[in-house]
């Protein structure tokens, strides 16, 4: 108890004297970041788990372009599972001479098995546990506005009339696919046959939902997954609702790793602050030992202080993190489900524990030196405790990092890869910095006094210099990478699109309407891209091997083999398609196909391979004549598979193209719907705006999180400046004693920190550009271009920031009286 009270007294005194300000700040930043991200990710995960079923409208869902074989629903019956089904297709609604392309969805009586529908009647929103009754239809607001109808009016869907009985506001399993762009109409399954809309060859998306206990669902899944016909699959929230599943998982992982970055930087700041704290207590500890305090009691006193300090600052960090995560939720509101699950206490506990772990891991080695301080130091102030083993220092740091990264990545392979990357990056950077310092040493004799003294100051404490440069470089490169990727993804993409970039895609143009439609566009003065013939088919085999055996999970290849592809044929490949392997086909040669390069890589397709397709029930084999690269961001039609002329002409074909429709000519859409009822017009301009909005939100969130990294980086900067303050005060006073002016001292200081900032800035640009190159080539498939402005701006900015911070942090050096040189004795 005596120890606790004494430790508390000493701690309060040190805090009051400002001895622990930077250490406190670094720890609070680290825990705040960890708590912010931890709470956010926790709520995300809990929401996903709680509402996963709702997003699929059932515990398990199957979907496909065909009706399920009867055996499967019968088997579900025998297992006692609840069942529901839906059929979704695009069609024309007709009302008062108006026509409108809609996404129509027929739902069976138990739909939705999970989640709820939200409808509106008499301006009041209501929850509904089931879909519309027979003879009724629910439509969304766009239908009401476009057709100028009200509740109670009748609409004709195909050959059947339905009464509009409510406005549809929300359906739990509305996916982010093609149908999501269209106005919605929901009606009863029993009315489906009467509409006569679905004919052989119609494009329909069927979904079957099943509910039951976990064990029974699992049993059912195990049976059906091997019995599903081609074109049918089991829906998984992470794959089939990517806007919810994979994206969230990746976002969670990214956020977690951002938190690790902040903690690493904070750890460096904590280590430096603890080092200074320790050094400034050597005299006090020597005196305590001289007065009879035992070694273990000395350690107990400091350990208690650190634990109290850590405990309190981590609590404060958790409180700030609570506030911080709410702001993050606000930034990402559009991505969030509603309602969001309440956070659990475990996220806060983990953040608190991470902070304590960080403190102990990075502050422990310097504090252990206090244990070795001998009483002889009261007589000989030059006596110093022996340095702690380098293995202990780095081993602890690496150990802490491993725990943190593993916790946030939840992926052993990724943890190993990241740690390996960190070790390699640290080694490489250290080597580069050592080379730079050696070069400085070699050339130092040729430099003027102030430059030489500045260099000497850096060279004198190489470990400190190394730590400073590493920390600044890490912070700056992370921020630059985020900025440049964000710019390239959003701004350049939008800025580089020509003025009349297509904002509409038109598909399902029937062969006998094609010419008339093209003429109509021409008469309206609208320039179109090429009309492409489209045939729907599915890739089944590669060199007689089924494709499912060649794909890896979650790859682009897997997605392409799970559904029908739009196949086309042209005499010559489109202009912006570039052959990267093989050759263009000779004229009048059928039976050849050109494959998109990335898909080919994912599926292991090479030139000369034989691909087997299923098209309209018939089988077709073709040989790969070339691989192509595409430009996906031009908003022109792009195809994974392009066949040589004469290969697929025998199959039923529709046509597609894209064009730019000015706002002033939007009324043409209605007349086209009337003239050409079968065609489907997709407003991709709206989709582009939605994506841009989403990306803006994500980048705002990323920027917010990077602020933590920036503050942590500033902490490192200030701590490293403070770590050398005593030595600089002495040096400054001595130089002034020998006749140096304040201007000279300032010049030396500015040069030293300009060098620090400049080197860090240059290294940061190098690393950021290298990582950007890898990310663009391997992950994003974007063109990489060197940005020379970065090489100018960032080092200059870094130099300015570091010099100004040093000016502020080292103010006492210029004011320190030279007289103190005498008094130090």
């Amino acid at each position: 108890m005596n120890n606790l009270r004494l430790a508390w007294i000493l701690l309060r005194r040190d805090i009051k004297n400002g001895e622990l300000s930077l250490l406190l700040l670094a720890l609070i930043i680290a825990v705040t970041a960890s708590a912010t991200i931890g709470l956010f990710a926790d709520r995300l995960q809990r929401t996903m788990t709680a509402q996963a079923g709702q997003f699929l409208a059932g515990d398990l869902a199957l979907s496909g372009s065909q009706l399920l074989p009867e055996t499967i629903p019968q088997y579900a019956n025998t297992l006692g599972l609840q069942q529901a089904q839906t059929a979704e297709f695009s069609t024309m609604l007709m009302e008062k001479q108006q026509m409108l392309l809609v996404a129509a969805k027929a739902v069976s009586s138990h739909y939705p098995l999970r989640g709820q529908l939200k409808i509106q009647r008499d301006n009041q929103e209501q929850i509904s546990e089931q879909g519309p009754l027979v003879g009724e239809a629910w439509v969304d607001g766009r239908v009401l506005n476009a057709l100028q109808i009200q509740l109670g009016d009748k609409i004709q869907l195909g050959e059947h009339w339905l009464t509009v009985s409510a406005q549809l506001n929300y359906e739990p399993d509305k996916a982010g696919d093609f149908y999501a762009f269209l106005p919605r109409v929901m009606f009863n399954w029993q009315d489906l046959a009467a509409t006569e809309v679905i004919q052989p060859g119609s494009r329909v998306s069927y979904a079957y939902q099943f509910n039951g206990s976990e064990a029974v669902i699992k049993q059912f899944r195990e049976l059906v997954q091997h019995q599903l016909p081609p074109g049918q699959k089991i829906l998984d929230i992470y794959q089939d609702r990517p806007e919810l599943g994979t994206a969230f998982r990746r976002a969670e992982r990214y956020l977690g790793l951002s938190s690790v970055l902040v903690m690493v930087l904070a750890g460096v700041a904590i280590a430096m602050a603890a080092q200074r704290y320790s050094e400034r207590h050597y005299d006090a500890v020597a005196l305590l030992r001289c007065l009879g305090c035992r070694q273990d009691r000395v350690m107990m006193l400091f350990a208690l202080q650190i634990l109290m300090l850590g405990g309190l600052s981590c609590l404060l960090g958790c409180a700030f993190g609570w506030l911080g995560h709410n702001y993050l939720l606000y930034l990402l509101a559009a991505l969030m489900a509603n309602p969001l699950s309440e956070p659990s206490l475990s996220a806060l506990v983990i953040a608190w524990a991470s902070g304590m772990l960080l403190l102990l891991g990075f502050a422990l080695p310097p504090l252990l030196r206090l244990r070795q301080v001998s009483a002889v130091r009261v007589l000989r102030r030059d006596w110093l405790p022996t340095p702690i083993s380098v293995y202990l220092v780095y081993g602890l740091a690496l150990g802490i990092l491993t725990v943190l990264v593993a916790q946030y990545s939840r992926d052993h392979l990724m943890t190993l890869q990241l740690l390996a990357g960190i070790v390699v990056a640290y080694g490489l950077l250290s080597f580069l910095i050592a080379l730079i310092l050696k070069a400085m040493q070699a050339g130092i004799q040729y430099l003027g006094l102030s430059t030489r003294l500045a260099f000497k100051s850096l060279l004198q404490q190489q470990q400190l210099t190394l730590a400073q440069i590493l920390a600044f470089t890490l912070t700056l490169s992370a921020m630059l990478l985020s900025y440049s990727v964000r710019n390239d993804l959003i701004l350049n993409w939008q800025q580089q699109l020509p003025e009349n970039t297509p904002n509409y895609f038109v598909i399902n143009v029937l062969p006998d309407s094609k010419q008339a439609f093209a003429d109509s566009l021409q008469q309206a003065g609208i320039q179109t891209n090429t009309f492409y013939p489209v045939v729907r088919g599915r890739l089944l085999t590669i060199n007689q091997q089924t494709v499912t055996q060649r794909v890896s999970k979650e790859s682009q290849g897997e997605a392409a083999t799970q559904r029908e592809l739009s196949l086309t044929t042209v005499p010559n490949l489109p202009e912006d398609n570039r052959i990267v392997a093989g050759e263009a086909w000779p004229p009048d040669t059928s039976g050849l196909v050109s494959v998109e390069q990335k898909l080919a890589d994912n599926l292991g397709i090479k030139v000369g391979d034989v691909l087997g397709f299923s098209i309209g029930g018939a089988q077709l084999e073709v040989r790969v004549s070339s691989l192509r690269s595409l430009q996906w961001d031009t908003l022109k039609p792009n195809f994974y598979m392009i066949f040589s002329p004469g290969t697929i002409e025998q199959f039923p074909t529709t046509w597609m193209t894209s064009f730019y429709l000015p706002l002033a000519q939007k009324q043409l859409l209605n007349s086209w719907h009337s003239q050409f009822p079968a065609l489907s017009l997709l407003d991709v301009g709206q989709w582009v705006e939605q994506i841009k909005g989403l990306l803006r939100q994500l980048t705002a969130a990323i920027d917010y999180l990077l602020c933590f990294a920036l503050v942590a980086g500033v902490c490192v900067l200030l701590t490293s400046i403070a770590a050398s303050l005593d030595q600089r005060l002495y040096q400054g006073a001595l130089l002034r004693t020998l006749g140096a002016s304040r201007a000279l001292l300032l010049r030396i200081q500015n040069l030293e920190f300009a060098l620090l900032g400049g080197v860090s800035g240059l290294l940061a640009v190098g690393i950021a550009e290298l990582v950007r190159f890898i990310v663009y080539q391997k992950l994003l498939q974007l063109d990489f271009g060197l940005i020379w402005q970065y090489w100018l701006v960032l080092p200059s900015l870094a130099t300015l920031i570091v010099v100004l911070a040093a000016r502020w942090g080292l103010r006492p050096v210029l004011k320190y009286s030279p007289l103190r040189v005498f008094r130090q004795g």
Partner: protein
Amino acid sequence: MKPFLKQSFQEELIITENLGKRVSTHEGDLDILSGIQLKLGAGDSLAIVGESGSGKSTLLGLLAGLDLPTQGRVLIAGQDLSRMNEDQRAELRNLWVGFVFQSFQLLPALTALENVMLPLELRADRHAQEKASHLLERVGLAHRLQHQARQLSGGEQQRVALARAFVTQPAILFADEPTGNLDSKTGARITELLFELNQEQATTLILVTHDARLAGLCQRQLQLEAGRQI
């Protein structure tokens, strides 16, 4: 020609007039020094002696222009230090003054040669290296030019400090307990070197010391007791 030379300093290089230093403490004002009257000519040597806390280091600081008095004034070569700003006093120190400290006060990042060159470089002397090498040779450290301060023994460090103090051929040399951190044998050698160099350069020497033998080597002694001259 050294600047600030207003009158012949053959007789009165340093003059103090009723010099005093008062500081504020929790218990009120405290006179660390008061009524110090002093005149020193070129080539004179003065030992300031007294018990601990008698104000010796404070007086040295005032005489060297490292601190400003609260009463009276200090004139060096006719220049009133109180009328100078800090940079002017620094320049004066660089041109006129040399220092030797008890704990050597070398810059650890610099070699022995660089430490001695430093005051010359501060005045942009082109022959700094040559002069510094010569002086280090003079103090017997020709073989240690490129060694850093921490690689030198206490006696060697003090010899480097002596070389640094004399390399600018100062008019005045201040020494604060120059042998305080040395064993008696090394201290004796340092004392010998100090006075040899002082004689060679005809420097005015002001020495603070507890060592009676060292004090006895000076021409004059100024005894301080509780901040007053006795």
